[in-house]
């Protein structure tokens, strides 16, 4: 196992190892209680992982306490399709007077090339989407998500060097793929982490736009430093409390 997989500055990797070790030692009894609560309410493992994209677009296993019923992952594409096809996402497409339009062959017959291009752009517009009042979430799940306790197993990700305590949020593949465009791709040049600039600068998760998040991520990638990390860490606790209360 490499101790510093992403060649982070030594101060950052050192801080990650020290803080993560202390937190794991202190929180171990609390972890046992949470694991029992999850196991008692619904079938399945207490900790699960999903593949997330971190620094340098490396894919790693991102640990969380399970907050959903076991078959939840299979439902995500169904929800996403519903979202993609909802009326607010529809737009009327006008083909300009383009007599030289090229036709492409697709699964559903012929399509004009500029129409196909437009469809692709529409598809790629959504890089973050959230489901409100998600029926997949268990009761314990709802509590641990509201309090951000579900994120605590990521301390192990920090310890083994997949990510840092402070950094840009690791993203699921389907979100990360859409951010590989000029300028925005810079978010993957900086460290990924459990908490970051946009988390401490938003009052609640829903009040920050995707563009604002991207801007915060880019700023962090460019400007991360020991003092900025310390500020973000200190602001994280009030931000979590505020989120819990709201």
């Amino acid at each position: 196992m490499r101790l510093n997989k992403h060649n982070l500055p030594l101060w950052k990797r050192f801080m990650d190892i020290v803080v993560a070790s202390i937190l794991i030692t202190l929180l171990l009894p609390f972890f046992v209680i949470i694991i029992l609560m999850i196991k008692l309410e619904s079938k399945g493992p207490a900790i699960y992982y999903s593949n997330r994209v971190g620094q340098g677009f490396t894919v790693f296993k991102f640990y969380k306490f399970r907050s959903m019923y076991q078959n939840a992952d299979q439902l995500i594409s169904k929800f996403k399709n519903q979202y993609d096809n909802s009326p607010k996402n529809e737009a009327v497409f006008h083909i300009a007077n383009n007599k030289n339009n090229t036709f492409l062959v697709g699964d559903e017959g012929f399509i004009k090339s500029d129409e196909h291009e437009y469809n692709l752009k529409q598809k790629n517009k959504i890089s973050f989407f959230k489901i409100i009042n998600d029926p997949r979430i268990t009761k314990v799940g709802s509590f641990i998500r509201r309090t951000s306790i579900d994120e605590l197993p990521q301390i192990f990700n920090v310890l083994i060097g997949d990510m840092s305590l402070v950094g840009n949020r690791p993203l699921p593949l389907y979100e990360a793929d859409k951010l590989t465009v000029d300028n925005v791709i810079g978010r993957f040049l900086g460290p990924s982490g459990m908490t970051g600039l946009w988390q401490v600068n938003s009052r609640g998760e829903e009040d920050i736009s995707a563009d604002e998040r991207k801007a915060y991520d880019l700023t962090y990638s460019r400007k991360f430093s020991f003092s900025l990390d310390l500020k973000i860490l200190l602001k994280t606790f009030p931000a979590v409390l505020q989120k819990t209360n709201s």
Partner: protein
Amino acid sequence: MEQKLIMIVEDCEMMRKFLKIYCEKLGKVITYESANEALQSLTVKNIPDLIVSDLNLPGINGKEFISQLRNKSISKKIPVIILTGEANVELKLDCLSLGAVDYLSKPFHPKELQLRLKRILGQFEPIL
């Protein structure tokens, strides 16, 4: 095995840095901000095994860059992959007609780019 040399021509600094880090898994990487700089760098001792180029470049654009590469004896056989924000099919056809070996639109999956580069560089493990 001899290390491959990959040239990246991209005007966006962030994209250039990202591609450099990602492509370093496959070989040595040199980057240029413009096609002009890239063309000037080509010498007998500095011939890349592969070029990844943007289309919208300052000065000489990507299409002109492919043409100029094809017209020089020193560079006419270097495979060129176009990586661009333009998803336009006609542009894609133009680039392939000019001699680009592949065309990828942004946003892209970096692993897909890596696999395409590997194939061109002959680094694929044979399946059979």
